C-alpha cells in the first residue's frame, strides 16, 4: 500500500512528492489536470509585495514576520521556509534550468506589460532581464504574434528609466503556420534550424552592447540548448519575458519535476478527478476517482490535498454564498456571504476577500476544525488552498507551494516513522 497519495499535480503536489520519495515514502500523485504551472511564469516568487505597498519587497527573508499570524509562512517559520526554497533550488538543479536568486534578494524582471515584476528564483532564461543590469535592452517581437507587444513593454520600461527600444521580426522566422500559441511556438524553437534563423534575423537588429528580450518561446524541450545557441551566435545575453498562458517556462518546470519523479519511480496520473472518499473513525481509507473506464479506489496511509484554491479547482462556490473544498468538504475561512467576497475595485491593493480564505491548518499542516483539532488523522494540505494568504496578490504563489509541499511531506514522514516505532514497540 502507498504511504502517501497526493491529490494535485501543481507545484505543491510535485514538490511534496519529490520530498516524500526522497524521505523514503511510497508515493503517487493523482490529478484532474496538468496543474497550474502551465499558466504561470516559471519563476519562483516567494514574496513580492506586502500590505499594499507600492514598492516591491527587497528580500523576502527580512519581511516574512510582517505577514498575518495565520499565513503559511508564519505557521512554518522563517527557517523552514527558507530551507524548503534552498532544498528546491538544489533539487531542480539537474534540470539545467538554472534557477538562482539575486544574492538572497528579489530580482526585478520585465513583465509583458512593461512593469518590473519581483521574483525570488529566476531561471537562467529570464535573469538577463534584471533591472539591476545596466546594459540597454532591445525587446524583439514578431509581427502578428498576439501575446507579445514590444512597443507596450518599451513604453513602460522607458518611463521607469530603462534604456530600451522595440523591434519586430517577421513571423516566418518562427514558423510557416500562423495559428500557434506560445507552447507551440516554443516547440518550433526546439529545432536548431529555427534557432539559426532567429540568430540570423536578430543579428540584423541588435546593436553592440544590447541585451535581447524575447517572448518566452525559446524551446519547450531543448531550452538550455536553444538559449546557449542564441547567446553564442549573438555574442550577447538573451532573456525571455513570460506572457499569457500557456507558458513555456512553466511547462518546462512542470516537465522537469515530473521527470525527476519518474526517475524515482513515482507515478503521476493525470485525468484522475477525485470525486469521493471514505473515512472510518477519522481516518481516510481511500479516495475515489472516476475516469471514463471505471471508478477507482486509491488507498494510502496518508493523503495530501494539493488541489489548489479557486484557480486550481480545489474550491467551488454557489450564488447562495456557499464556498467549499470539493473533495473532503473541509471548512473554509472564506466568508459564507457573497456580499463580502469582493471589493468594488479590481485592483484594490488589499485583494479580494474571496481569494484570501482557504483551508485552516495546524503547525503540521493538517486541516483543522474551528476548535483547532485535526479533522482527519491522516490528511495534510499544501499549496494555494491554505488559508490566510492570497498568493497571487502577495506574489508568493510558488514559494507557498514549495514551502508547504516540502513541510507536508516531512510531516507525513515524521508521523509514519512514529507509527512504525509504535507498532514495533
Amino acid at each position: 500500500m502507498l504511504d502517501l497519495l497526493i491529490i494535485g499535480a501543481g507545484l505543491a503536489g510535485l514538490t511534496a512528492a519529490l520530498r516524500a520519495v526522497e524521505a523514503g515514502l511510497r508515493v503517487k500523485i493523482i490529478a484532474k489536470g496538468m496543474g497550474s504551472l502551465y499558466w504561470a511564469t516559471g519563476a519562483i516568487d516567494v514574496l513580492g509585495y506586502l500590505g499594499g505597498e507600492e514598492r516591491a519587497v527587497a528580500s523576502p527573508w527580512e519581511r516574512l514576520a510582517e505577514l498575518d499570524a495565520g499565513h503559511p509562512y508564519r505557521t512554518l517559520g522563517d527557517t523552514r521556509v527558507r530551507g524548503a526554497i534552498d532544498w528546491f533550488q538544489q533539487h531542480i538543479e539537474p534540470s539545467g534550468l538554472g534557477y538562482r536568486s539575486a544574492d538572497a534578494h528579489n530580482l526585478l524582471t520585465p513583465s509583458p506589460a512593461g512593469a518590473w515584476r519581483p521574483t525570488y528564483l529566476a531561471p537562467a532564461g529570464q535573469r538577463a532581464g534584471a533591472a539591476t543590469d545596466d546594459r540597454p535592452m532591445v525587446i524583439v517581437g514578431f509581427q502578428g504574434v498576439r501575446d507579445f507587444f514590444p512597443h507596450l513593454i518599451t513604453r513602460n520600461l522607458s518611463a521607469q528609466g530603462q534604456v530600451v527600444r522595440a523591434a519586430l521580426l517577421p513571423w516566418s522566422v518562427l514558423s510557416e503556420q500562423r495559428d500557434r500559441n506560445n507552447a507551440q511556438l516554443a516547440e518550433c524553437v526546439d529545432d536548431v534550424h529555427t534557432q539559426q534563423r532567429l540568430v540570423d534575423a536578430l543579428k540584423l537588429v541588435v546593436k553592440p552592447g544590447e541585451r535581447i528580450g524575447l517572448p518566452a518561446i525559446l524551446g519547450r524541450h531543448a531550452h538550455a540548448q536553444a538559449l546557449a545557441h542564441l547567446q553564442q551566435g549573438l555574442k550577447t545575453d538573451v532573456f525571455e519575458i513570460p506572457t499569457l498562458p500557456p507558458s513555456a517556462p512553466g511547462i518546462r518546470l512542470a516537465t522537469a519535476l515530473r521527470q525527476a519523479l519518474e526517475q524515482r519511480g513515482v507515478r503521476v496520473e493525470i485525468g484522475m478527478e477525485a470525486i469521493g472518499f471514505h473515512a472510518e473513525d477519522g481516518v481516510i481509507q481511500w479516495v475515489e476517482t472516476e475516469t471514463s473506464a471505471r471508478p477507482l479506489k486509491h488507498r494510502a496511509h496518508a493523503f495530501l490535498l494539493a488541489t489548489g484554491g479557486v484557480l486550481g479547482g480545489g474550491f467551488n462556490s454557489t450564488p447562495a454564498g456557499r464556498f467549499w473544498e470539493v473533495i473532503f468538504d473541509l471548512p473554509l475561512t472564506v466568508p459564507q456571504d457573497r456580499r463580502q467576497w469582493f471589493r468594488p475595485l479590481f485592483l484594490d491593493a488589499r485583494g479580494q476577500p474571496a481569494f484570501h480564505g482557504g483551508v485552516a491548518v495546524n503547525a503540521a499542516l493538517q486541516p483543522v476544525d474551528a476548535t483547532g483539532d485535526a479533522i482527519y488523522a491522516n490528511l495534510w494540505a499544501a499549496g494555494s488552498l491554505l488559508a490566510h494568504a492570497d498568493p497571487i496578490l502577495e506574489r508568493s504563489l510558488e514559494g507557498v507551494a514549495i514551502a508547504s509541499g516540502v513541510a507536508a511531506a516531512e510531516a507525513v514522514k515524521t508521523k509514519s516513522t512514529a507509527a512504525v516505532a509504535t507498532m514495533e514497540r
Partner: protein
Amino acid sequence: MKKLATDILVIGGGSTGAGVAWDAALRGFRVVLVEKRDLTHGTTGRYHGLLHSGGRYAVKDPQSAIECIEENRILRRTHTHCIEDTSGFFVVTPEDEGDFPDRFQAGCATVGIPCEEVPLKEALRREPLLNPRISRVFEVPDGSADSFLATHVTVQAARQAGAQICVYHEVVGLLTEGSDGARRVTGARVRDVVTGEELVVEAMLTINASGAWAGQIAALADIPVRVIPGKGVMVAVNHRLVNTVINRCKMPADGDILVPVHTVAVIGTTDERVADPEMLNIEPWEVALMLAEGDKLVPGLSQSRILRAWAGVRPLYQENYTGDSRDATRALALLDHQQRDGVAGFLTITGGKWTTFRLMAEKTMDKACAQLGVDRPCRTAETPVPGVEQGYYWVGHRLHEVETERLQGDLVCECELVTRSMLEQAAANNPTVTLDDLRRDVRLGMGPCQGGFCTFRAAGILQELRMRTEETAPSNRAARPEEPAWSVAHMQSPRHAMHQQPATLAAGRSPLDNPNLLLRDFLQERWRGVTPVLWGRQLKQERLDELIYLGIMNIDHLPPDDDASPLTEFWQFDTTPGAGSEETT
C-alpha cells in the same frame, strides 16, 4: 470659443438620437449630434436586444403593440444586418394564468401581429431545453437585435447625409434668449470631454433625445421634465440556451424574456424605479430573481455558467405619474416645450423602446418640420442604412469567415472571434477613446473569459497601431485624417476588415495614447459586470485573470500616472464609498 451653426442639434447618441439625426439629415437639414460618451453608452447599449413583434404588449398596451409590429417590419428592411431573424415563442408555463393565452391570441389578431400556435412537440424539437411542462406555445415574429451596430450604422447613414457627429461631447448648458413666456432655446454649450475644449452649437431647433437623462438636459433651460428612470437588470448566460426568443405568455413582469444574442443568451429583466440614470448597481436579489425566473423557461438555466450582469435605465415618461416603473407606459413621449412650457426651439423625445426608435425619430422630425414651417416628408422607412446587403445576421457568420479566410492565427479574442484587423479598423474608423468603445464595436471581451486574454492584447495592438501611425505619417499631421471615416457598416466582419487598407489612427490627443489607462479602465469595467455573478466556474476564470494581470503582468505596479478617461469617471461614480446606497425615490 469654436462655434458651429446648424439647423438641428440632437442631444444624445443612443438609438433615438441617432434615429433623429438620420431622419433630419435625410430631410435635408443640417444636423449636429452630441453625445457625452460613446454611442450607445446609455440605455441603448444596456438592453437585452429584443426586436419586439409587439406580442409583449398585445394585451396590455395595443397602441404600443401596433407600433412595434409596424417598426419590426420596417427595421427588417432598413437594418437587416443588425437583426437576427430568430422568431419568438410565447410559452405558457404551469404558473401562468388561465385565460391570458386566449386573450393574447385575440390581442395579436386585433393589432395585426402574425401569431400561430405551435404544436408542443414541434416547439420542443426546435428548442429542446425549454421547460417540458409548458402547455402551449405561440410563435410571433420577434427577433434579436444588435443595438450597438444598429446605432453605429444609423449614425453612419446620418453622416453620409451630411450630419456631423460629436461623441464624447457633453452638453454643459443650453443657450436661451427672451424672457418668461417668450423664451427660446437657440443651441447649446458643449464640452469635449477628452480635450476639455468648449464649443457653442447654435441651432434653429434643439432636440433633447437623451433618454433617461432628458430631465437633466431640460433642467438646463429650467424646464421640468420628470423622467421615471426604471432600472432593468439583465444576466448573460455563456451559451445560446435557445435560438428563439422566449417570452412568458402572461402580463409583462420581471425575468420573463430570454433572448439569444450573438453567442450568449440574455435573461431579463427587472424594473426598479431609481433616483439617477447612472445608478447601475446590481443587488444580489435582482440576479437571484432573474435566475429563478429563467429556470421556469429553461430548467437548469441557473446552473449554467453566468458571464455577466448589467443594468440599463429605461427612460419612462408619463405626465404626472407617481406609481411603479413597471406599470408606467412604454409609449413614446414627445414633449413640445413651446406648447407645454412656453419655450420655443426645443423638443424632448423620450419613453419608447429600441424597436420604435425610427418611429420616434419620424414623429419628432414631423413636429420639428411643423415648428419650422417646412414640409419635408420622412424618408427613413424606405432608406436602408449601409451594410444591409449582408442580409440578416446569423450566429455562425464570424466563424464561417474566420475558417474560410484562415484567420485563426489573427484572433485577438477567441471567445467572440475578434481578429486583429477588426480591432484596428474599428479603432481607426469611429472615435475610440476606451477599450469599452471597442467592445461595443466588435464585442471585444464579451465572451466567457470576460476580457482575460483580449484586454492585454488590445492594449498592445493599439500601442503598435499608434507607433505605426506615427512612423508612416511622421510629424505631418495633415497626412492623417482629422476625423475618423465612420465606416462601420461591416465592422463585425472578419473578412471585410482583412481586406481593408491598414488602419491609421486619426490625429488628436486621445486616452488611447496611454495603454495603461486602457488596461485599468477596461479591467475595472469588466470587474463591475462580473462581480454580481461571480461564483463556481466563472470565479475560477476570474482568478485566472488575476493570475494574468497581477501575477504575470504586474499591472498594479505600472509606472504611476494621473491620466483619466471618460470611462474612469464613469466607474468611479459607483466605486466611491456611499454611492448607490441612497434610497430610491
